């Protein structure tokens, strides 16, 4: 019993020690210039950023980060990382920027974000000329309309919110890209996909057969992911730099052309 007490006390002290980590005073921007290296978390969100087995990284964000490093006059260093701990790595000073991250209120508590440079948002997809006349968002909200959704997924929550009266047919271990087969085979009426990533793939395979509602460039305003670059919270010098850089990139049209270049079926599929 006494041993257990000592162990618990030691663990408590350790956790207290951990959570008291002091914030660093120097701006990340100065640290990057001193180091001569911009460190970016190497996560996987194709076609924005994805690691290849040989260790190199490809994607739209990689291009943007290359330009940022060149703008700062430093080297770009993409460090192998995983989503689970990517945001934590900012506080731990493992890297200066996490790319391809959905801007959420919860994350804003611990990191600051650049403006969003791309929005990943849902659309409903049905067969063209379908018998249930699914051409408007409202038309999907009927019990006789069957959505094929991966269970517990983002698609499922979008369907529940966007068409609460529709019937859900749930699938384990699959993605909306697999489930489009259900629609094509007539076993379901609709799937939820994201635009521009999944829909680009689907249109490449079944382009003329699919109806996209409200439209590829007009997604639903439900659970949209506004993607941005995350960096250390409260670092105003870094924020001013990132904001200025993104504005420059957008004003020159460079940002849009990079994203267009990578939002193709080939890049989404293999990004290699």
């Amino acid at each position, binding site marked *: 019993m006494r041993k257990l007490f000592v162990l618990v006390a030691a663990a408590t002290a350790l956790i207290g020690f951990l959570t008291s980590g002091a914030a660093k005073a120097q701006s990340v921007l100065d640290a990057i210039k001193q180091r001569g290296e911009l460190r970016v978390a190497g996560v996987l969100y194709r076609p924005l950023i994805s690691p290849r087995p040989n260790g190199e990284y490809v994607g739209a964000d990689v291009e943007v980060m290359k330009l940022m490093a060149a703008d700062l006059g430093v080297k770009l260093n993409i460090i192998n990382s995983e989503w*689970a701990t990517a945001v934590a790595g900012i506080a731990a000073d493992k890297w200066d920027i996490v790319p391809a991250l959905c801007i959420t209120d919860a994350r804003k508590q611990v990191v600051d974000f650049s403006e969003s440079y791309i929005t990943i948002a849902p659309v409903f997809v049905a067969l063209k000329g379908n018998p249930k006349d699914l051409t408007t968002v409202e038309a999907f909200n009927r019990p006789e309309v069957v959505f094929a959704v991966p269970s517990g997924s983002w698609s499922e929550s979008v369907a529940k919110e966007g068409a609460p009266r529709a019937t859900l047919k749930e699938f384990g271990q699959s993605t909306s890209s697999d489930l489009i087969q259900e629609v094509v085979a007539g076993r379901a009426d609709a799937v939820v996909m994201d635009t521009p990533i999944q829909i680009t793939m689907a249109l490449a395979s079944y382009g003329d057969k699919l109806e996209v509602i409200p439209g590829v460039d007009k997604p639903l305003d439900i659970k949209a992911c506004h993607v941005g670059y995350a960096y250390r919270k409260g670092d105003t010098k870094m924020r001013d730099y990132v904001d200025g850089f993104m504005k420059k990139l957008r004003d020159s049209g460079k940002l849009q052309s990079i994203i267009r270049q990578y939002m193709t079926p080939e890049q989404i599929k293999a*990004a290699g």
Partner: protein
Amino acid sequence: MLNSATIVGYLPDYLAGALLTLELALVSTSIGAVLGLALALTRRSRYRVLSWPTYVYIEFFRTTPPLVQIVWLYYGLPLLFGFDLGAFGAAAVALGLNVAAFLAEIFRAGIAGVDRTQWQSARVLGLGFLDTLRFVILPQAIRNVLPPIGTTIIYLIKDTAIASAIGTPELLRVGQLVANETFRPAEALTIVAFAYFVLTYPVALGFTTIERRLSLARA
């Protein structure tokens, strides 16, 4: 249908991953063996100031998952002390500290299995503590516990896969990236499994051989 053709182009990447796995295993086994022996001795110490911290260390590392220890070293150390081991360093040290706890208990059992009279006889012959350990106790102790040591090391080699969680480009991570790029997870991970077998089987064989030689020598 398994399609091996898509995977062949990635063999150099697999090889690089397997080498890193091997390096991780070697470094962490070395840390674990040295520290584990020291812990086994302090755990047996009469002085509580030595045996108690050792007890806490062993129980802490035996009862917390290696994944947590790796993540803690990788992200916790820089936060606390501004000291960064890097992904490989954090994984190697965490696995080393972890396996040390298990090896310590195995070594302790081995040492306890050597009859007390051996210590006394060595003392009578005028051997000091370290010489007694080196020439009398350890050769017998290690022989007693070779099978569990072998098993622990094999576990460690496979546990290095946990390092993929912090992005160390070892064997499993290479396999995951290949699966991701080719959309062929079955093939990509079958190669990973085969590669782990190639890495661990010689170790298992080696331990069996040493065991057999030693038991022959004893007979």
